[in-house]
Structure formats: structure tokens, C-alpha cells
């Protein structure tokens, strides 16, 4: 198997590797593989700016990770590398770090990142992983002054990351779950026809945050809405959601709120549709990566989701251009998380302004940065808790008015409701400990 | 007082009765053979005594204490050792290890996990002694599964007698052997059961009449006769039921 590694790197690192190998001729190939990794630490003058991208790239959850990686790599090429690079001609190199969506693997990949001197790590999927990375980085930075690492969280929405567990070395570019729920419940509250809600979610922290806060927020906004069900199911273990749907049906709910993602989302939505229930579903992650295609015509106008990207119709020509260019290169993929692009652009802006790639300098610069995204949205990174504020959107799954569809299915998201940046501001309980320099 | 007593022992599988009202006394030091046609229940009887099967009714006593329905290891600890019709050793362990394991309990090691077997001089010497007795000293380190058939049978005997049990039960010890192998085996059996009590099941009548002090004849789960070899030879019922059908000069 060490052969694979030869295949991969015989190109770029051929010479260095050959030299390394002649020294360790007696060592077996496997040891050679380790030795090779050592050689990566050497630095040179006009070397690229290397950014780590840590997400699941193999295993069950890989589709989300790989589509993010594609988007980030493309954005780096499109906005910077094809225009002469950053910081006076340095290219951006995205280094994929496959954490298999496992906290343990995250730690291993983090150590690899440190070995390879990756000082800025983009990470998004799974709050459990984000928490692990957050704490690992905090410990590492405390114990290894001068080798700090910065976490650019583009998707993990567990509120504690910018509240109780906030860290100077962590920046979140997505809106956290309570911010999103605030908007989603506003939207539900506006609909007078909704009198009863059924909440169902995966039995883990995000599912619980969704349930608790939906109940709390709706209680404040529409005390007349009855919560007729609050159900948790084990994550990723349910074969058939029909028994749950039976309960939803018999509860007489007018709408379903769920924080499910992945296969649990598809199966739940399909079961609801197959049972002939016509209730709308309010959710977070019900588009792209095969989900849109699978829901297809059955889910039309019934599924609404809250997200940070304005969907169809797109707001700016710049963003249209970007999408088209991406589609031309990756016909089978979509830009699923444009906040990844925002994060990249803001980090690069911080680098340019400080003329540095040092995580501390970048972190200081990112605090309270204001930025206009390619979609024309006004973004603000709050310095107190490192939470980004941005407009939030609610879109529905449909095939009407769709300029950019998802999964090449003809179906996509159409934005119905919008909340401006200022209206998403929330309190926080972060007491940040700032390192001294 | 008898060493082993069977009192009205019955064994049924479902509705089929395999052993029917068997009573038998074995004296200490006696060499006892059980013969009978195939399917008579000889092996079943062995399994009942050694604890592999529970009796359906009746009682089995050993040294004056009841042993029926005890688990096999309890019975083994009380001093009944047995061999099997089909070779039944520890195939992936060495010949020496087979014997040493068979010795462990009787040497008082029980389930010890704080003593190293390699350090136990007496245990190892005794194991080698038994290997010598059964003539496998030169194969000591070979995995026992790789032994020739006759050697495996010898090892089987060795494992059975290693613990120094009072009563030794051998189930067809020479089955499948050539004449010369069988001769050696008989000599070995004589040697190792000296001063012990022996019960054996065997089809080869020459061997049976050669070794046994007394013979029991088991037919369809019942003992039809128990007597000295001479009397059994002359017993009419036995001739009808058994000897008449099977030529014994095999």
C-alpha cells in the first residue's frame, strides 16, 4: 500500500523525496511514508499560503465535505490564484484534512496540520467535531506559544461555540442555531393558519437545541400555537420513519419543525410525503447532495429551510458569474455553502491588511471586520464573541423561478423571506480570554 | 464397597429411550469391559458416567458419593478420567502442552494466573514422565494435530491418565488401528492402568478377553449380562444377542 503514496507524490515532491529516500534506503517503504511527511516541514521563500480544510472526505458523511472542498478550492483559484495570488504573488493552497467526521480523527488530523505547519484550519461539519477542534486548539495554543492555530468555523452551529465555550482562536461564519431559529419562528409566527407544531429531531445536542428553542421562541411569539409533539429519535439508526409519521398525523399538527440532516432528513420527509400528510416542513438542511433530487416534485412548496445564502433569484451578477464558472468546471456539484466563500475572502482581507499569515494577526484583524460579500450582503464579525452576523433567508423547495437548481434536478431553493444583518443580532454570554502578545 | 455404582440409570432423548434401567457395580482395581452391538448405548453410558449427559432417572455414585448430573469438570476432579472414541485432544497445542494441561488441575494449579508454568519444575518433569510412558518424548514440541493417528490415540490416552485418576474410562481405544499398532496400544493400556480401575468399550473381542476381569454386555440400552470372560463366552443370551451375529475374529 505505500505505493499509493508514491504515485501521488512522485510528481511535485519528487526530488526532495528521492533525496530523503536515499538516506533511508534501508528503511522499508512504510517507514519511508512517515519519513516523507517529515520532509514537508521544510520551508521556502515564495511558498504558497497553505490553508487547511478539515471535514469528512471519506466515509458516510463525505458528500458534504467533498462538496465544501470543491467550493473552497474553486473560490481560491477563481478569486485569487487566477489573479496573481495574494500577499504579493503567493498562491493559496488548500490542504484537505480528512477527519471522517470523527472527533478522534479530528485530533489526529489536527496533529498532522501542526506537523505540516498549517496554521489556519477551515472546518464546518458536526458541532461535536467543532467543539473538539475548538478545545484541542485552545490547549495546543496555550502549550505551544508561537505555533498558534486558528479555527475558521464555517458551518457548525452549536451556540456554545460563541457563548460559554467561545475562544479567541475560533471564528464562526455561520449563524448559530438560536439565531436561525429566531428567524424561523418569526416566519412561522407570521402564518396565522398554523396552530399546532410537531417537533421531531435527532437525539443529540443540535436536535435538542432546536427543540428547546423552538418551544421557547414560539411561546414568546405565538403563545396560541400548541406544541403537539416533541420527539427525539436516535441519530442515523431509524430504518423507517413511518411510525413517527403516524404519531405526527394523529397529533393533528399543522406543521413539522426538524433539525435533521442527511439521510435522516430525506427519510423523514419521504415518509411524511408517502403517508399523504400535507403538512409543511420547516428545517435547516434539506437541500443539495442528492436530497433535492430525491425530494423532487413530491416535496414542492412543502419544505422551507433557513440558511445564510440568498437562493434564487441570485442578488448580484458577480455571484452569478461565480456560480456559472463553478458549474462549468464541476457540472455535477453545486455551491452548497457560500459562507465558505465569505470566510475565505474575509480571512484573505485580514491577511492583506496585516501583510501577515500569522493566526494572531489575522484574528485581531478579523475582530469587528465589516465586509460586503459577492452577493452584496453586509457582514459583520462581532469582536466580543467572534460570531459573524449576516442576513438570513428562508427559502422553499420548488421548481419555479429557479435559475440555479440543485443536483441538476430542475428543483432548487427559492427565497421567500429575508432578515437583514441588524435584525439578527443576539446577545451572547462569551467571556473571552485574550492571549497577550 | 464398590468404586462406581450405577443404580437403575435411564436416559431418554425425546421419546427414545437409549439407556434403560442399567445397574452396575465396578470394584476398585477391576478391569471392566462393556461390549455390545453398534447403537446399543455404550458411548451414551460413558457420557452419563463422565457427566456429558444428565441422567433421566437413576443414580450414579463414585466412592460412595452421588455424581450424576454434576458437570464433567466436577466429575473429573473427583478422579474419573476418560478418553474418546473420536480423537479428542488440543490440536493446536504441542504434545507436551497437551499433557501438561491435563496435569494442571490434579497438581493443584487451579485457575492460577500468577504462576508461570515454565517455572514449575515438578509439573514439567511429571509431564515428561508421562510423555515417556506413552512413547511420545521425541515429539514433545510438535503440534499435536500433526501427529500420526496412532500417536494421537496414544496422546489421547496420555491426556486421560495424566491426572492420576482412580477410574479410567476408555472408549474404543484401539479403533482404527493396524494390528501391530493395536498390540502396542494394548501394552500401553496395561502399563498405564496398572493399579487403577478401568472401564472400556471395545469391539475387538481378543483385546476385551485379554484385558478384562469382568465384562458387561449392553444390548438395546440394557445390560443383559455381567460376568467373567469365561462365563460371558458361555452365556446363551449373549451368544444369541451379540456374539452370534458378529464374528469376533475381526
Amino acid at each position: 500500500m505505500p505505493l499509493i503514496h508514491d504515485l501521488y507524490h512522485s510528481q511535485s515532491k519528487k526530488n526532495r523525496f528521492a533525496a530523503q529516500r536515499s538516506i533511508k534506503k534501508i528503511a522499508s517503504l512504510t517507514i519511508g511514508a512517515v519519513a516523507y511527511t517529515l520532509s514537508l516541514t521544510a520551508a521556502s521563500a515564495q511558498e504558497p499560503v497553505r490553508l487547511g480544510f478539515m471535514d469528512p472526505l471519506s466515509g458516510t458523511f463525505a458528500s458534504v465535505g467533498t462538496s465544501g472542498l470543491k467550493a473552497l478550492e474553486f473560490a481560491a483559484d477563481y478569486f485569487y490564484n487566477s489573479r496573481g495570488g495574494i500577499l504579493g504573488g503567493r498562491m493559496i493552497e488548500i490542504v484537505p484534512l480528512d477527519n471522517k467526521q470523527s472527533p478522534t480523527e479530528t485530533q489526529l488530523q489536527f496533529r498532522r496540520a501542526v506537523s505540516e505547519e498549517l496554521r489556519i484550519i477551515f472546518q464546518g461539519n458536526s458541532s461535536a467535531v467543532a467543539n473538539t477542534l475548538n478545545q484541542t486548539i485552545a490547549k495546543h495554543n496555550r502549550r505551544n506559544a508561537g505555533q498558534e492555530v486558528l479555527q475558521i468555523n464555517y458551518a457548525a452551529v452549536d451556540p456554545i461555540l460563541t457563548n460559554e465555550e467561545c475562544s479567541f482562536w475560533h471564528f464562526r461564519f455561520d449563524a448559530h442555531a438560536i439565531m436561525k431559529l429566531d428567524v424561523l419562528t418569526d416566519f412561522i409566527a407570521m402564518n396565522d393558519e398554523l396552530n399546532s407544531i410537531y417537533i421531531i429531531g435527532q437525539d443529540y445536542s443540535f436536535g435538542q437545541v432546536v427543540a428547546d428553542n423552538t418551544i421557547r421562541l414560539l411561546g414568546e411569539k405565538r403563545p396560541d400555537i400548541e406544541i403537539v409533539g416533541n420527539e427525539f429519535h436516535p441519530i442515523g439508526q431509524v430504518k423507517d420513519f413511518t411510525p413517527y409519521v403516524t404519531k405526527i398525523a394523529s397529533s393533528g399538527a399543522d406543521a413539522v419543525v426538524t433539525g435533521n440532516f442527511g439521510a435522516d432528513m430525506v427519510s423523514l420527509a419521504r415518509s411524511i410525503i408517502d403517508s399523504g400528510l400535507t403538512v409543511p416542513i420547516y428545517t435547516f438542511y434539506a437541500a443539495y447532495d442528492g436530497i433535492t433530487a430525491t425530494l423532487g416534485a413530491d416535496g414542492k412548496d412543502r419544505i422551507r429551510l433557513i440558511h445564510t445564502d440568498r437562493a434564487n433569484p441570485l442578488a448580484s451578477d458577480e455571484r452569478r458569474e461565480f456560480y456559472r464558472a463553478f458549474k462549468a468546471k464541476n457540472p455535477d456539484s453545486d455551491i452548497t455553502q457560500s459562507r465558505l466563500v465569505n470566510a475565505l475572502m474575509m480571512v484573505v482581507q485580514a491577511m492583506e491588511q496585516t501583510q501577515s499569515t500569522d493566526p494572531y494577526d489575522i484574528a485581531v484583524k478579523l475582530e469587528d471586520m465589516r465586509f460586503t460579500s459577492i452577493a452584496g450582503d453586509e457582514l459583520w464579525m462581532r469582536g466580543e464573541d467572534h460570531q459573524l452576523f449576516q442576513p438570513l433567508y428562508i427559502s422553499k423547495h420548488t421548481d419555479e423561478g429557479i435559475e440555479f437548481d440543485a443536483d441538476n434536478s430542475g428543483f432548487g431553493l427559492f427565497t421567500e423571506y429575508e432578515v437583514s444583518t441588524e435584525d439578527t443580532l443576539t446577545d451572547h454570554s462569551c467571556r473571552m480570554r485574550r492571549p497577550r502578545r | 464397597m464398590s468404586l462406581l455404582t450405577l443404580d437403575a440409570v435411564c436416559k431418554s432423548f425425546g421419546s427414545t429411550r437409549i439407556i434403560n434401567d442399567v445397574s452396575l457395580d465396578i470394584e476398585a482395581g477391576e478391569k471392566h469391559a462393556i461390549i455390545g452391538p453398534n447403537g446399543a448405548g455404550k458411548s451414551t453410558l460413558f457420557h452419563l458416567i463422565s457427566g456429558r449427559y444428565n441422567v433421566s432417572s437413576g443414580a450414579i455414585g463414585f466412592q460412595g458419593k452421588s455424581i450424576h448430573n454434576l458437570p464433567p469438570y466436577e466429575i473429573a476432579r473427583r478422579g474419573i478420567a476418560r478418553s474418546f472414541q473420536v480423537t479428542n485432544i488440543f490440536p493446536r497445542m504441542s504434545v507436551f502442552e497437551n499433557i501438561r494441561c491435563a496435569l494442571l488441575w490434579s497438581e493443584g494449579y487451579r485457575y492460577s494466573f500468577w504462576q508461570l508454568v515454565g517455572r514449575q519444575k515438578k509439573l514439567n518433569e511429571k509431564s515428561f514422565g508421562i510423555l515417556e510412558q506413552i512413547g511420545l518424548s521425541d515429539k514433545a514440541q510438535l503440534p499435536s494435530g500433526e501427529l500420526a493417528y496412532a500417536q494421537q490415540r496414544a496422546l489421547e490416552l496420555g491426556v486421560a491418565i495424566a491426572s492420576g485418576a482412580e477410574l479410567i474410562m476408555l472408549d474404543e481405544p484401539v479403533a482404527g488401528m493396524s494390528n501391530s499398532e493395536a498390540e502396542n496400544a494394548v501394552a500401553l493400556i496395561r502399563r498405564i492402568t496398572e493399579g487403577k480401575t478401568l472401564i472400556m468399550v471395545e469391539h475387538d473381542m481378543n483385546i476385551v478377553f485379554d484385558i478384562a476381569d469382568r465384562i458387561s454386555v449392553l444390548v438395546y440400552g440394557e445390560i443383559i449380562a455381567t460376568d467373567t470372560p469365561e462365563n460371558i463366552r458361555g452365556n446363551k443370551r449373549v451368544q444369541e444377542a451379540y456374539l452370534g451375529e458378529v464374528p469376533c475374529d475381526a
Partner: protein
Amino acid sequence: MKKQFPIWLGFALALILLPQIFDTVLGISILNQMTIWIIFALSYNMLLGQGGMLSFGHAVYFGLGGFMSVHALNLIADEIIVFSITLIPLVGGAVGLLAAVFIGSFSTRKSGTVFAMISLGIGELIVASSLIFADFFGGEAGVTGDRTYGPPFFGIEFLQDAEVYYLGAFWLFVATLFMYLFTQTPAGRMANAVRDNPERAEFIGYSTRRVRFISFCAAGLFAGVAGGLFAINYEFITEENLNALTSGRVLLMAYIGGLGFFIGPIVGAVILTLMNSLLSNYSEMWMLYLGIMFLLTVLFLPRGFAGFIMMHQTAWQNRRLGTLILPYLITAIPASLFLAGFVGLVELSHKGDDTLSFFGLILGTESMLSWGILLTLTGIGALGVKLSGPRLDAAWVLANTVRSDNGGDAQ
């Protein structure tokens, strides 16, 4: 023991010297993983290899030991107890042992399928309860600790992974020694006997259930020690360290390494840790390769890699090992061609619109030439292996034929 003294000395020396050779953060981190996995895999082999008990839930003891150890770290950090973190693996071991005593009391009655299924069921139950009892298990995010509190150990505060490595290496050495010594005790020998022939073991005076129970408890104890080391190394633990995936992984390690040899799980743990941490950096398809390798091992090396090495013992004793080198090399050339071609095909078919750099060639999915090159390579490789195979076989037979009269038959 005396004869093996040089081996143990070499083992200790290797443990001391390895971090000097692989001294990057990644290198140390891989070595740390290895210490944990080796102990865990060895403990698993006490069940399957030594005791004949196929378990699908061995991670339970590893995980429970780890969870308790992280809680212990937190108790130390909160100054509720004063305890050196160097002894945390003992905490893990004690918890692993306790859990094994409890579960073993009913699951070791039978071996075979019944035991395997109980272990599977128990494993699933514990995983499920780990998500339900979030206070102790911390839900899907797990529990976190910090190893740098508590009384320093001769001035070492375990800030760096390298310091943790030496702690792990110490425990690895101790655990390996004790696990080896266990195999040499009456209980350890009887575990083998029960594995080989449970029925016979009963007739020489041993309760198979009791023998299995003792092995089971010992295996739980050492799995817990590995869990404790995990806690120190990663300073956190999650539900995934209890689940069937982890149990499956340790089974894989033991099996690929070779169940029948004490050293087998060590080999397996090293191979799998390396594959897991290095291969995954180069290919998204690494799990596919891992799966193929695993199946090929089961098919063609039923006694694992250690068994493969030990197969050469006869040739070594015959002093004909040298005659095998050339045939091996001759087969290795087409085999590596085949491997290269196959890997190239797998990778290329997964490249989409990208190109694949392949030994200086740039291959594209659109180009028929690219596919042609790879297919030809694979074909030539396969043909070469087929043609050179008989020669290797012949050499093998020759090398294993007894030259003089030194015991053993020709294979």
C-alpha cells in the same frame, strides 16, 4: 523468559528510540496511536486468538475505561482527588475489569455464536445508553479533560505529546509483558486448551466457563488500560470509542496481524494505524483499499501477516531462505505493476474532471489513452504474476524440503 530476554530488551530499546527517528508532531502522534492500539489489539487477542471467543463488542471496555479516565482527569483538575496522571491507565484498567466481571458473568457461558451475539448486543446497548446518559458520556460531543493538572511527575507536566509518548511506551511495555506472561500461566494455557477443545477441557477438570471468564476479565482489564492511555493522549473521549466500528477495527487489527501469534496483533495494529493515518491523506478511496486488503488477507493469509512471516521458519531452519529472495523479487515486479495499474484505475475513475498525476504522466478521465495505459499496466501485471507464480511455488517447495534429518516433513 531467559531465552526471550534479548527480545524484550530490543522491544524496550525500539520504544525508546522510535520517537528520536520520527520526531515530528505527526510522527509522535502516530506512535502514540500505536501504543494505544497495540495494547487494545493484544487484549482483544486474549479473547479471540488465545481464548477462541469472537467478540463484536470489545470497545465497550476500552471506552468505559477511557470515559472513567477522562472523568478522573477532571477530578484531578478540580483538585477533588490528588492522583498522578501517570497512573490513569490503572483507573481505566480497573473500570475495564469491573465491566468485564459484570458482563463476563453471563456472557462467557458459551463461546461461538452465542458469545459473539451477546457481545454485539451488549455493545449496541452500551452505545445507545451512552447517548441517553449524557451526563456521564457527554452525548455525541463526549467528555473533555486536561492532562496537565495534578502533581507533576519528576517535573514533567505532560504538556507535549512526546512526553505522553514515553508514558504510553512505559505502559505499553508493562501491559505487553503482563499479557505475554498471562499466556504462560495455568489460566493462560487453559484458555488455549478451551479454545482448541472445550469439551475435552471439561474432562480434565476445568470449567470452560470459568477459564473463559478469567481470560475475558483480563482482556477487559487491558482494554481499559488502553482506554486510559487514550484519555491521556487525546484528553477527550466520545461515544465512537465504544461503538461497533471501534470493535470492528480492533478485530481487523488482530486478524490481519495474525491471531495465532502473540506478536500478530502488534503487527496488525502497526499496519492499520499507519494505513489509517497516512493512506487517508492521499486518497479518498483509502477505505476501499483497506477493505480489499482485508479480504485478501482473510483469503490468502489466513494466519495473518505474522503467520506469513512465520511460514518462513522452515525455510530458515533449512537455511534456504536465501533461495526465496529472487523468486519473490521476480513476482514482486509484476505484482507492483498490477497494484499501480489497479490503484491508478480506481483513482482515475474517481477524478471526475480533474487529472491524475501518475508517475510523471498526467492522466485525464476523458482520454482513452489514459485508460488504455492503466488497463495495459494492470493486464501486464496480472499476466506477469500468473507466469511467475509457478516458479515461486517451486522455489517455495524446494526451500521447505528438508535437506538433512532435522525433523518435520516436507510441506
